[in-house]
């Protein structure tokens, strides 16, 4: 389960960031922000012509001592970032993928809301609830 989940706009500013309340929120903001370096590099590495066939899931962006950071980029260049604890070895690539898929579906629902202005911070309860389900439960 994730310790931090973030949605980043096409212009690289955050639309949504949730992290486990037990830890320093600022640290996760920095982690997500720095991971954009790798996301950008990975997107630009795929040639323009290949952009259509590009896989949305970017995989492990970079490992830190304590966390693993995974990335996902939608076709509209909105980025999803999931941070999991390095000690959590039970999470497999497949599960991360399915987390991203769920996130993407929920994000699509947010976008479909006619009252949501694309580019505004996400304040959807449904989205919030879905993210909560994917976060590490702090007892």
């Amino acid at each position, binding site marked *: 389960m994730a310790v931090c989940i973030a949605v980043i706009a096409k212009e690289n500013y955050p639309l949504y960031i949730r992290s486990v309340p037990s830890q320093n*929120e600022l640290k996760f903001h920095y982690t997500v*922000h720095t991971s954009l*370096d*790798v996301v950008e*590099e990975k997107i630009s590495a795929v040639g323009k012509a290949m952009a259509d066939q590009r896989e949305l899931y970017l995989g492990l962006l970079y490992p830190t001592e304590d966390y693993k950071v995974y990335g996902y980029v939608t076709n509209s260049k909105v980025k999803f970032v999931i941070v999991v604890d390095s000690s959590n070895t039970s999470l497999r690539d497949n599960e991360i993928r399915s987390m991203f898929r769920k996130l993407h579906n929920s994000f699509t629902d947010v976008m479909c809301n006619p009252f949501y*202005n694309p*580019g505004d911070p996400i304040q959807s309860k449904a989205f919030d609830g879905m993210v909560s389900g994917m976060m590490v439960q702090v007892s």
Partner: protein
Amino acid sequence: MMSPTQWDLPPELCCRPMAFVALTGLDVVYNAVHRAIWDAFCANRRADRVPISFKVLPGDHEYPKCRTKRTSYEWYIPKGILKTGWMNKHLNLVPALVVLFYELDWDDAQWKEKQSECATKVEIVRTSLQGRNTKVAVVLIQKKTPLPPGEDVVASERAAALCNACDLSGKSLFVLPHTDHLVGYIIRLENAFYEHAQTYYYTEIRRVKSHKEFLNKTTHQLLFVRHQFKIGFFSELKQDTQNALKYYRTAYGLVHELRVHETNMLEIKTMAGFINYKICRLCFQHNTPLDAIAQFRKHIDLCKKKIGSAELAFEHTAWMSKQFQSFGDLFDEAIKLGLTAIQTQNPGFYYQQAAYYAQERKQQAGQLCSHEPSVAYPAPDPLETTAGALDFYGQRSWRQGHQSIDPPDAEKEKLGILALQMKEKDIPHSELIIALLSNAVAQFKKYKCPRMKSHLMVQMGEEYYHAKDYTKALKLLDYVMCDYRTERWWTLLTSILCTALKCSYLMGLIKDYITYAMELVGRASTLRTEQKSRIEKNLIKVLMNEVPEPEPDCDPASVKAAQALWNDRVSLAGNNDFTVDMQEYVPFVQCKAKFLSPSFHVDDPVQLHVYLKADCPHSLRFSKLCVSLSNQEYNQYCLVEEPCKSKDILEPSTQENMCLVPGKTRKYCFKFVAKTEDVGKKIEITGVHLMLGSESGRCVYLNWRGGGGDAGSSQEAVQASRSFKRRGRAPEQHVDWDMVTIQASTMVISRVPRISVQLRHEPPALNNEMYCMALTIQSQEDTVARDVKLTAGLKPGQDANLTQTTHVTLNGSEVCDDSHPALLTDLPIGDLQPGEKIEKLLYVRSVSTGSRIFLFHVAYTMSTTVEGKEITCKCHKDETVTIETVIPFEVTTRFVSKKFENLDRVFVDIPFLLMTDILSASPWPLHLDTSRLDLAPTMAAIDQLQSQLEEEVLQTGECASECFCLKCPPVANGSSTVASGQYIISWKRKSTFAATPMINTVVTLPHVIVETIPLYVHADLPSFGRVRESLPVRYRIENRTALVQDVEMSVEPSDAFMFSGLKQVRMRILPGAEQEMLYNFYPLMAGYQSLPLLSVTLLRFPNVPPQLLQRFLPSRIFVKPQGRAGDASIAAA
């Protein structure tokens, strides 16, 4: 540079081990030859030379004593893993080979004596190396070049003797002639030395390996590690890195098999770190970086949790930090040697992690080492050792060699820990952290990680802040701030701003303090309202020239210093004006300025609105608002100041006008009259300035460049434009901030002209004619339009050819030529009274066809009043018209015979006809005045040439024809092409519209071929015949040559005629003479009848066909039927 600390890896571990060879018997100070030899060994030790470290030692040098060899390990309990001196000993103290240099030639006079002296020297070295396997070799320095081997009998004899005397094998005796090729000899020598050294290290490895059988697993665990390490190290000295790696790996495995307890944790970690370093280093050297990384990861995972004593937790983090740092160094070094790193795997990550552990260390040190001031450093110093250094790596100085689970003396242990803690307190932690962070920054910069770099710089800044170096902290934070601002990561920006605000407070930097505070209370800040409120209150204090409250969580001592600093600043007069450019920040006041329209007529006042909105928690008073414009003369009209209570500038409001209420949009309206000189120019808002504070105390100008907007507003504008909310209609009085768009410039345009310009003409224009256009100008102004000027003609900017082929004039009485321009400019017309009308005729001559655009530009000046101000404005009105020019008529000409047969050539002196047709193509009737034929000298008219179409009018599609009878005088060569002349038509358009002059159109007639003929036949016959009435016909045959012609003539019968006369005759005609032939034809039928055909053949000119002459003869005649009584009347008709 920082002094080496306890955690730094020893240099002997980090260097590349090379075989150690000692050179003795060389006097490098006083003996030039010896010096040269030594230099040849030392200089240019490039990679292609064997890896040996040489050292010059005196002949009687004492080498480290070899301890007596242990015969049994049975009772031996090792005291540690690796002695601190061991590596250095084998790198620098115990040589693999000792070389004795000795000057001796084979033919030396005192050979015997020298030989025994040499043997003595060898013996001294041997004694000193007692018990070691170190090899000894002798090099004889000789003056003479040696002979090839085997030729010098004396040499081989004496060599054998010397070897014998010195107890040397033949392989250990070398000769070094110091001749020209010294370096070459030296290289050969050192290769030989290298072989000896290899053998030495090989035996050493064997020796260490041989200990293994004596060891047991219970008591000698430490020795297993030690021996494997030693074998690895010797292998490295032997340059056998593959095997070295293998042994180090075994050693690494063994070190983790050791029983771990608190007392030996440090020793185990230290050795594990050493071995890990060696493995990683060799992996990079073998170009298997992934192995190095995998080993390092394994190492970290194994050691991460081996914290050891909780009271010395900082030691663990210090050690961890060092592990990462040295791996980063190794990685970086490998990159410098050609390895390629990538964005996600580069040394930066290791430095970053090292910095992270250094930060942890600092934190732990802070917790564990904050002793009461009364606690004194223990005496005697438990960290002192008798030898000045530890015996074994990673042990405690107060219990060296102790290997059991519990410390031998709890009290000593306590003092030792206390001493370590107190030492730790003096460590410059921040310095270490910053150094590591800056290493990481350099790496991430290289590997395209701008955000990581910024993050690390923030950490550096924060570390400087903790280290109380606020200047550097602020410099770094300020540098990265804008990255976070442009990327709109407000949480991160707020956090950085908070630190920056603290720094600026502690340093008493007023301007920076104001800038950061303004952003922190603004809309980009994610602070809670009460925090914003606190900061705003401080900001207001600063603006009122008071000392702000200290920021929370600051170092108390620094706060005290800062307060004193602020008090000084307050009392200091002057230098209290600050200007802050808002474009670079997201401040707490937003500004948008707009001209109400993108253009204003000069006779309308220019209107400008400035919108302000405050985002701070409390309302805010300002003392001045002014707008600066590109033309500064208008600035005085765009100003709000306290004393100014003008009602029309300020929007009516219940609130005080100079006060900004949080979240409310406030509008300020300005109005001014543009200067007439500015017509056609742009007026731009160059800046909006809002003054906070007061001029007497401290004042801050907030400057917005252009029409406002700041670092956050462009994205907000985009979002607002996308928003569904914009479709909603806001109440009239309330201004929605997002709906306001900036309009930073406007154009001043000329007054709308009140004048009518009308045009009358009859298009299309005809080619070459003087086309007349009537222009009517009528003033609709209320006052006099002065200085009216007309510019008329071809509109500039069209095809350049049109300028050449268009001529304009006002004079319609004569046809204009090339000297007339295409455009008449600034024709003065004078003044126009209100309602007055004036008409002008303009004539245009287009020499080519096609369409043209004509421009009529009427300009004038007049006076008017705007907002009670008298201004003189220039107005102008433009009219354009497109006119097509067409061909008026087409002229065709042809030559025909008198029988109206088309001629392709004419004959000398024989008359023919010239026919001309003028076909009108003009949509308007054409008036043809006259026409004229100008004949060339090669043509002559038969009779008077008189125009047959004087004063004719041609309607569209009508054709006017003329016919002229001409002949050609004789030509030279019997045949030639001659010019015919010109046909000139004088015409104009038939129109009642205006009188225009006649135009002469000249048509050049075609050339014609003229031929001379030898014979000509004249036929004289009546114009008609009558049935059964005799028709007399006379043919005259003329010889036009200078020769006598034989002519054969015949008349062929015709059904319509009977005839009398010579039917066939041959005759001779003299030059220039004529022969007459008389016939009587008797018509038999009425109507057009073919005459009997006269055929003439020239016997001398067989190539002149009879048909040629027939052309001149009439072939048919009209025959009237037989008349009745009233025949005469028919004849008359």
